[in-house]
């Protein structure tokens, strides 16, 4: 196996599992340390730079970082990264003075963003600070897009959306609410230097089944219904409700229904419970609110009595897997199940709708009706039109929309400067020793063995009474500080210098997870099998260094390293050192590499 080049930015970035997993590459361990130090404003701003909406994401992020968290591989549960983000947002002081200002002298380029959701607002923020004049068109009354219309207020209060959209607006970004763009051709006639389309996936999938038309008054498309609830157009629901679908929208629908008078609310999903798309914690919350989830049932028909919905008929299915592991749902042959209800909410998927984009202006669409894009630059076939968020590559989540917004902003910036879009700026990377003394490091290397803190919530009785009452209370400072201690500081990397090593084995002996081995080199597969603890997780790299006097190599399995620094404390020669790895992923305006 070849020696590892830790100077390649991706190598140590991957070791910081949470940051690598985050689409926007938020520097998680650094902001957790800042929270531990009580510097909430700094933690907030670090988040703000990467993900633009820390207060919103601290409540409703899909948290790809948490399943990736190293702690989850050595302990029962990962660090509550998402909820710590909320702590930074909740406890910070007024940060207006600390935010960057848009330059007073503009660069003369005009950018239009369509939609005021997370993708558009990210583009607007990234470009506004670079001197662009950005105008955001949105059909809603206030900015936020689906964050405002789809997510129930008991999970995400309006005040948080107002605050964080306000920070973007404060950068001289012109937010034009209540302006529906009905024609891209007309918009393009306005001589914009670039147009960004961040209109989301605004159409909920319908279920064209027998009885749908007849009972239409009692069957609602979930995301439309949620928007109506969000804006106060819908304030109650019938007693017995069935929610069809197994994603997070279904969870929002059923929990909202519970708060609007639905006493007997059930979720019915085609797949198995474990394969549901909804995040595990959202399923838990729904079950906690007394909502049963029934699985392996496919809707066949809506039953009605002269247009009054009486229930839904389901076919029982089971999962079967072919040789390639692909799942298909096959009828079990058992009798159909009829479940009575008074109203149905459909949360079976979302679709894009680009009716407002003329098909003859140069923006090409594929056979699924999605724009043809360069996946990296997010540029459409009409060079000055860019896409991002759910509108670009299909429905995902807020943090992905933000990440795509950053990429689109880089592309727009390069495009406006007449530079090639493919020569994209690289990250800024730094690696600095944390050694302060023989046993002292500038980070807290003590490894907490405590369990994940539960987030305090309102009592069920209170929560179900008021749909606008935020259900989660967030961590208080004591819980937050305890939880920060659980972070393993994966960005403080173990760096090995072979020429200093005397091969005394001190690091091998002290390593609590037995991840260091000195042995003869070999092919990676074979090497993985003969380490002190076999390295079975192929997704995690082996750190290999050569140049030792005996001709052996040092192999460290990155998988379960606790970053406790014991190897470095035990090393008599300083061959091991703990060095903080910082990676600042490029945003619009960063220098592109010179070729």
């Amino acid at each position, binding site marked *: 196996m070849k020696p590892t080049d830790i100077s390649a930015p991706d190598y140590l970035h991957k070791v910081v599992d949470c940051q690598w997993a985050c689409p926007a590459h938020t520097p998680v361990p650094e902001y957790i340390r800042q929270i531990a130090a009580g510097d909430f404003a700094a933690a907030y701003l670090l988040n703000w730079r990467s993900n633009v909406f820390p207060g919103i994401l601290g409540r409703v992020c899909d948290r790809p970082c948490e399943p990736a968290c190293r702690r989850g*591989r*050595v*302990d029962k549960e990962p660090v509550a990264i998402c909820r710590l983000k909320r702590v930074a947002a909740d406890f910070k002081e007024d940060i207006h003075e600390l935010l960057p200002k848009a330059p007073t002298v503009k660069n003369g380029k005009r950018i239009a963003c369509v939609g005021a959701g997370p993708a558009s607002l990210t583009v607007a923020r990234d470009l506004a600070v670079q001197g662009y004049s950005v105008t955001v068109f949105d059909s809603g009354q206030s900015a936020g897009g689906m964050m405002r219309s789809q997510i129930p207020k008991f999970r995400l209060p309006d005040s948080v959306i107002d605050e964080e959209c306000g920070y973007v607006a404060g950068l001289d970004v012109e937010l034009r609410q209540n302006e529906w763009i009905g024609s891209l051709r007309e918009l393009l006639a306005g001589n914009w230097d670039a147009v960004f389309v961040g209109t989301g996936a605004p159409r909920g999938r319908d279920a064209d089944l027998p009885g749908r038309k007849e009972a239409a008054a009692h069957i609602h498309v979930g995301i439309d219904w949620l928007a109506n609830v969000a804006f106060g157009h819908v304030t109650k629901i019938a007693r017995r409700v069935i929610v069809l679908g197994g994603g997070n929208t279904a969870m929002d629908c059923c929990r909202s229904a519970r708060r609007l008078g639905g006493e007997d609310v059930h979720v019915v999903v085609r797949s198995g419970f474990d394969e549901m798309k909804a995040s595990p914690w959202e399923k838990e919350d729904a079950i906690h609110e007394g909502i049963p989830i029934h699985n392996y049932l496919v809707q066949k028909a809506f039953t009605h009595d002269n247009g009054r919905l009486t229930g839904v008929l389901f076919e029982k299915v089971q999962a079967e897997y072919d040789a390639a592991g692909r799942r298909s749902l096959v009828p079990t042959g058992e009798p159909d199940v009829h479940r009575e209800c008074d109203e149905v909410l459909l949360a079976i998927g979302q679709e894009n709708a680009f009716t407002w984009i003329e098909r003859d202006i140069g923006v090409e669409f594929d056979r699924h009706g999605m724009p043809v894009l360069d996946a990296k630059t997010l540029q459409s076939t009409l060079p000055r039109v860019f896409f991002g968020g759910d509108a670009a590559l299909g429905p995902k989540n807020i943090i992905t929309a933000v990440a795509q917004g950053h990429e689109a902003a880089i592309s727009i910036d390069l495009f406006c400067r007449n530079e090639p879009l493919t020569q994209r700026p690289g990250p800024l990377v730094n690696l600095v020793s944390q050694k302060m003394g023989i*046993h002292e490091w500038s980070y807290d*290397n*003590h*490894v907490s*063995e405590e369990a994940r803190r539960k987030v305090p919530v309102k009592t069920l009785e209170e929560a179900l009474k008021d749909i606008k009452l935020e259900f989660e209370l967030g961590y208080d400072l004591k819980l937050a500080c305890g939880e920060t201690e659980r972070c393993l500081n994966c960005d403080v990397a173990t760096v090995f210098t072979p020429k200093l090593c*005397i*091969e*005394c*084995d*001190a690091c*091998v*002996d*002290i390593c*609590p*997870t*037995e991840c260091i081995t000195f042995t003869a080199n070999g092919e990676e597969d074979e090497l993985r099998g003969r380490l002190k*603890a*076999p390295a*079975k*997780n192929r997704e995690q790299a082996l750190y290999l260094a050569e140049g030792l*006097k*005996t001709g052996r190599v040092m192999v460290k399995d990155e*998988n*379960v390293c*606790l970053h*406790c620094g*014991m190897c470095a*404390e*035990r*090393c*008599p*020669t300083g061959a091991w050192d703990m060095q903080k790895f910082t990676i600042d992923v490029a945003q619009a305006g960063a220098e592109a590499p010179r070729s």
Partner: protein
Amino acid sequence: MTYLAKPKLLSADAPRNALGYTRRDYEGAISTLCAGCGHDSISAAIVQACFDLDIEPHKVAKLSGIGCSSKTPDYFLGNSHGFNSVHGRMPSVLTGAALANRNLIYLGVSGDGDSASIGIGQFAHAMRRGVNMTYIVENNGVYGLTKGQFSATADKGSKSKKGVLNSDSPIDLAALALQLGATYVARSFSGDKEQLVPLIKGALCHNGPALIDVLSPCVTFNNHSGSTRSYDYVRQHNEAVNRVEVILPRDPIEASYPPGSLRRIVQHDGSILHLRKLDIDYDPSDRIGAINHLQERQALGEIVTGLLYVDSSAQDMHSHLNTVEKPLNQLGDAYLCPGSKALHALNDALM
């Protein structure tokens, strides 16, 4: 050393032995020795050996004297019996313990100061009496605790950290043990666990006095050029006569070696020592040959390591003394005081 206790977090993939223990379960408190001390590696090798042999920690008694080496029993086998005795007196305390309860595995840990200076008389008698024990000498050639004066095993002509040359002749504990009747004698190096761990396993399985002289560099006072106990010097002058593999009766035998290169020794408890010969002429069952070989090579400046001598049919002190099988504290009153009838019978027998 480090101030932090080792975190208990462990991957679910961490290896477990037949008893369900991980290596971590055989550890002790966090070491307070200098960072890079060879003794810590020996502690880790003992942990590994006990893990591999599926030894129940409560079946082990670890005893030591005074010195850096004798602190180490605190750092391994935290769930075993331990006794930190007077300077150099570990062998006699251990002998007493072994006489009182022969059902434990006895592990004596000592250093070159503890065993070759103040305790040499004790060392000699434990060997010649045939106490069933594993005697590990953590040999670094200096008195580390008192800032690096030469010990009795330091080579003549070797240089101290301050530049002083040693003018005294060294004691070779392995050669001495051979001469005194030890039935398992080995030498190894703390920086070579592949050699050391099997030697400790073989010793733990051996029925009789087993001495392992482990060269263990003192990273603070004896790891400079001019020292003959530094990591570099030992690596450069290490002449292993064989490599040992310990095979328990339950293990499948997989390895195959070219004819003549392997020697198979079955020990008293059924464990099998596979000796892969590195020096084809070396015979580890020849006590006199072993002593001669050690002397010859030492004259050439080489450090002979490996399993130097083993007597597979060794008998220990208990068989010499014809002692009772049961531990003394388990003998009931009826057995210990058989009554006046038995006394009369005994008296009559003496008439």
